[in-house]
């Protein structure tokens, strides 16, 4: 302990002596030094009392947080990848009637009604070969969606950046598989009965509440 006494000034020495007493570390020599300091300046005792009380108050808080920590266990089982997270979230969305119906409409709009006899190109109702009209690749379908959406005004555009969620090397091969988020900007008219704002519930928690106030123009970018 002497190294501190040698290396620091008198202010620090006073602080360290007080600190050692609080931590139960003060040796006989430390106590003697503290008493000598207090003889010259009795506020040492006041500082000691205050610092001790503050230490105990902080420790009470850290103890509470420690009890919370004791209840937090590591997640059990294999973790979901971002893709699995996404799929799970989508499964949740699909159970929500309004959007499920909307998704079904979109599916029909862009891919056409599924043929009851898939692969049978003779039953195209005179339209001809369905493969000639509807693109087969996801990129092709997306292009059609963008084109139709922009024409109708529902799709404003696509952000040039893609948000990378996950990258992983291809097993046994050269290259990396990148899982990303494509950002497409759409617009939709929301009726006043479906408009919500951030508010507070009876417990003071932030929550969504029906919006009854007039909405002003606002932009987040």
């Amino acid at each position: 302990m002497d190294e501190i006494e040698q290396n620091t000034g008198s202010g620090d020495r006073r602080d360290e002596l007080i600190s050692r007493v609080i931590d139960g570390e003060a040796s006989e020599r430390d106590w003697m030094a503290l008493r000598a300091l207090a003889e010259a300046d009795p506020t040492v005792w006041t500082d000691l009392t205050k610092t001790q009380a503050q230490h105990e108050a902080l420790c009470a808080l850290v103890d509470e947080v420690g009890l919370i920590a004791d209840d937090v266990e590591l997640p059990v089982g294999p973790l979901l990848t971002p893709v699995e997270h996404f799929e799970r979230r989508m499964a949740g969305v699909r159970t929500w009637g309004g959007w499920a119906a909307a998704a079904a409409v979109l599916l029909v709009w862009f891919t056409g009604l599924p043929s009851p006899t898939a692969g049978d190109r003779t039953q195209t109702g005179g339209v001809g070969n369905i493969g000639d009209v509807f693109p087969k690749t996801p990129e092709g379908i997306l292009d059609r969606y963008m084109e139709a959406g922009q024409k109708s005004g529902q799709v404003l555009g696509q952000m040039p950046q893609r948000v990378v969620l996950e990258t992983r090397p291809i097993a046994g091969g050269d290259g990396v598989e990148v899982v990303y988020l494509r950002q497409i900007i759409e617009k939709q008219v929301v009726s006043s009965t479906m408009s919500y704002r951030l508010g507070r519930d009876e417990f003071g928690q932030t929550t969504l509440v029906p919006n009854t106030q007039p909405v002003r123009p606002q932009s987040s970018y």
Partner: protein
Amino acid sequence: MDEQNPARAGNDQPGLTMVQPPEGAAIGPDEIKRIWRENRRWVAAILLAHKPRETDVEDLLQVVAMAMVRKIGELRDPSAVRPWLRTVAINAARASGREVKRSRRQLRLVRDRGEAPGPDGSADAAGTVELGEESRRLMELARTLPEGYREPLLLRCVRGMSYRQIGAVLDLPETTIETRIARGRRMLRELAEQDSAKDRSESGVAAGA
């Protein structure tokens, strides 16, 4: 150095053992669980030192736990698990801070439109924990201390955590830890005195008005 002293002792402390993961060996699920259990209390204290007021420690602990499971296998040096865990905790708290800032901006926009009440400032310093008024006030003041003082001060409050163990987490010598704790306590005491003086002068002004 006083080896008999509780604050200076190492792994022999009840209630807190600093686990040393096996050198050079892959860390198995049981070992990860053990490391987590032995370290989560001080991780919570680190989160407390860095988290925004509005965020629950428990939520952040979940984030750290998740990151630990996902990433601990990538640790090149398993003995560096404590500084690594500290960094994970700080990153989680800072990310939450950025999130809170964004939410505050959104709330401010809503408030500017006169649609929602403003923040009442009553959020607990520890999130879901019910705290005494003095603890809450001191924690708010401790948050304003420089990081180098704030962390050792709070880690010293973790049951049984010695200077040596704090030094291992912060990657600093034991003597530096002791000095920082002592100075941090003085700084906190001075801040509390200033805060009380401000309160007194404000209530004096209010009474005089």
